[in-house]
């Protein structure tokens, strides 16, 4: 009897295991995508799930007050969770994204839904009111900036611009950049050497903004030379071109000179907001949106000024490298309602409130009149921004590997370059080899 009992238990355990695995596998199979909406999203109903950072409970409540038939479930943005949801075929209906950096990646994989039909049918986003900056959300398979539109920018800045502390620059007797005469990167490094103050091994003030061997940053620098890291087919990168070498050398020189936070000496606050306001960083990289942070500091408006994007080459070029906004996954369960929300969030009263706050430029051009200009620094920043607009442009990134992966590769090699363990050429060779391997893996998955 005992023997029978033992066998029975083992059999039960085995069957239970198989059954549970089958259930789990069943749960992981991709759900059939819901029929995507055609043009227009008015009258959309049903709940939606939004994965975002900026769309918070307050925004959700404001939406609910006007649209009780479209309840919103919020999920904090989490790249890992997004991956899991996409892999399971149950993505959120609306997802936060950096249009400038991610569009090609999502579009090439068929993960993001084209929104052109929705946009053309939208009364809030009537033709001509959407800034050309939103073109960063376009990708035609080989070039960013043209083709279908995969998302809408929440608000943006020209992110290679920087802020500086006028008091510290004046005290050091260095040239202050103006709208028509930006710093060159070399001049900025020289100025930073003058501004950096170290006492007893402790840094009291860093002269330069935070830098990193980031492919987005390097692409932004190269924009002023007319060069790019990427080949025409976007399948390879080249860090050995003279322009790329200049950019990388400058980033390494900054790290070696210890005149700003770098990946070898990162800002403990994680970003420049607190350190710039505490006057522990004389310059902070950030576009117009950083003015929102300046507004939070006592008297910071007295000495904070916005400057145009520095020059590596001879051509003024000032891209947006984020264009933070939202996109709708191709397998979203309720894309009509998701777009209704996105339209409301991008161009409705929420967008007006955001424009008034100064935390970025509105993508809907009619809202530009709402930008703050009460304080002197706000007027100056707005004027600098308006002058800089003529140099704005779109950077192209590869659909075959994330910028995160390429940047992580550079970050891994960077300490050796700064310490002198490898030469600039050696760095480029290794970076080319490893990044191109990543890109080749992407090509094998995506095709092309």
């Amino acid at each position, binding site marked *: *009897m005992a023997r029978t*009992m033992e066998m*029975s*238990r083992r059999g*039960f*355990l085995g069957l*239970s*295991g198989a059954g*549970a*695995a089958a259930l*789990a*596998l069943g749960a*992981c199979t991709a759900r059939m995508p819901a029929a995507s909406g055609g043009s227009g999203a008015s009258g959309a109903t049903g709940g939606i799930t939004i994965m975002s950072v900026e769309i918070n409970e307050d925004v959700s409540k404001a939406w609910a007050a006007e649209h009780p038939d479209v309840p919103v479930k919020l999920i904090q943005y989490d*790249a*890992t969770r997004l*991956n899991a949801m*996409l*892999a399971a075929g149950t993505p959120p209906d609306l997802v936060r994204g950096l249009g400038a950096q991610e569009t090609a990646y999502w579009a090439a*994989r*068929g*993960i993001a839904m084209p929104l052109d039909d929705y946009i053309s049918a939208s009364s809030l986003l009537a033709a001509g009111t959407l800034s050309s900056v939103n073109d960063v959300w376009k990708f035609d398979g080989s070039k960013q900036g043209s083709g279908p539109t995969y998302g809408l920018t929440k608000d943006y800045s020209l992110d290679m611009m920087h802020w500086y502390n006028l008091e510290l620059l004046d005290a050091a007797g260095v040239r202050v950049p103006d709208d028509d005469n930006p710093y060159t990167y070399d001049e900025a490094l020289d100025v930073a050497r003058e501004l950096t103050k170290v006492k*007893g*091994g*402790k*840094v*009291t003030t860093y002269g330069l903004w935070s830098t990193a061997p*980031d492919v987005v940053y390097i692409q932004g620098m190269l924009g002023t030379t007319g060069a790019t890291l990427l080949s025409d087919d976007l399948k390879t990168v080249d860090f050995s071109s003279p322009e790329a070498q200049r950019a990388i050398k400058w980033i390494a020189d900054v790290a070696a000179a210890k005149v700003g936070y770098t*990946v*070898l*000496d*990162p*800002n*403990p606050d*994680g970003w420049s907001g607190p350190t710039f306001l505490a006057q522990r960083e004389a310059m902070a990289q950030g576009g117009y949106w950083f003015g929102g942070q300046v507004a939070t500091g006592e008297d910071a408006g007295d000495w904070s000024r916005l400057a145009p994007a520095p020059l590596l080459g001879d051509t003024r070029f000032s891209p947006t490298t984020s264009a933070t906004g939202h996109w709708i996954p191709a397998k979203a369960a309720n894309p009509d309602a998701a777009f209704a929300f996105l339209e409301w969030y991008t161009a409705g009263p929420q967008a007006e409130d955001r424009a008034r706050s100064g935390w970025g430029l509105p993508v809907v051009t009619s809202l530009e009149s709402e930008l703050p200009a009460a304080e002197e620094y706000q007027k100056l920043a707005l004027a600098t921004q308006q002058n800089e607009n003529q140099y704005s442009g779109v950077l192209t990134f590869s659909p075959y*590997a*994330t*910028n*995160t*992966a390429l*940047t*992580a*590769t550079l*970050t*891994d090699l960077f*300490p050796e370059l700064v310490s002198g363990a490898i030469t600039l050429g050696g760095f480029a060779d290794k970076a080319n080899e490893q990044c191109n391997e*990543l890109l080749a*893996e*992407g090509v*094998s*998955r*995506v*095709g092309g």
Partner: protein
Amino acid sequence: MAASTIDRRRARDFYIFVMPWLLGTVLLTIFPLAYAFGISLTNWDGISPGFSWVGLENYSNVLTDPDTWASLTRTGLLALVIVPVTVAASLGLAVLLNGKVVFRAGWRTLIYLPAIVPPVAAALTWKLIFDRDVGAINGIRSLFGLDAVNWLTGNQVFLVLVAVMLWGVGGGVIINLAALQDVSVEQHEAAELDGASPWQRFLAVTLPALSPILLFQVITTTIGVLQTFVPALLLSPATGPAAITAVPEANRVFMIDVYAQYFAFSRYGYASAMLWLFFVAILLLTGAFFKISGRTVFYAVDPRDAEAKP
């Protein structure tokens, strides 16, 4: 008939009691393991609809990658430092706190307290203490006219990691204190009568009695240290997936590399192969511990006798 009813009831009870564990194990352990093994045979990036089967290529690549061996070596070194110090310190403190000392309950509380501080809070606190510009350690150094040290970069960050990991030693103290209550007073008295010194009594009576608990601690601490991830990540001043490769090299332990492969490089297949190989390695290590314990661990009741009993 009555016997049959009892058997059925016992069987039903067995199924009821085992079901939560069974479901948890299948859904949260066996299924993920099998799923990860499947992924390890592909070049999937975790998101693309397309991928290729690559067989065991990821496994051979992991085993021939010098970075793998470098991070494994660092992880092994960390275990060699942390495991003996943790086990010895928790035993030593437990023996001290088991004696008649003033403020005993207070000492026990103070020593155990760090073990219940959330690891994230502990790591961030240590990070602040060792901060170059505003940290307490450099503040003390400056009192003596010494220049500030950048503790969170270079090789010195390994020392900070060791400090963070030894911070929770109080958890082992509590286990040892509980075990010490079971050490035979009679054997201690007999040894004392035979003229054994306190140190000899500790070696001949206390230590053998505690050896099963110490074995447990060695195994769980080793596994825990080998899987070190959160403290190493939190001590890195850089943030974000791309910054995972900015974790100072001294703290690039194996799980940091795994995380980088998953979430910075989007190599889900390769990272899953890393995890599977690591899982097998830990399994073998645990087996080796048990093998060695057969000769070094003393059980008051022979486990084989206990097994034979109904």
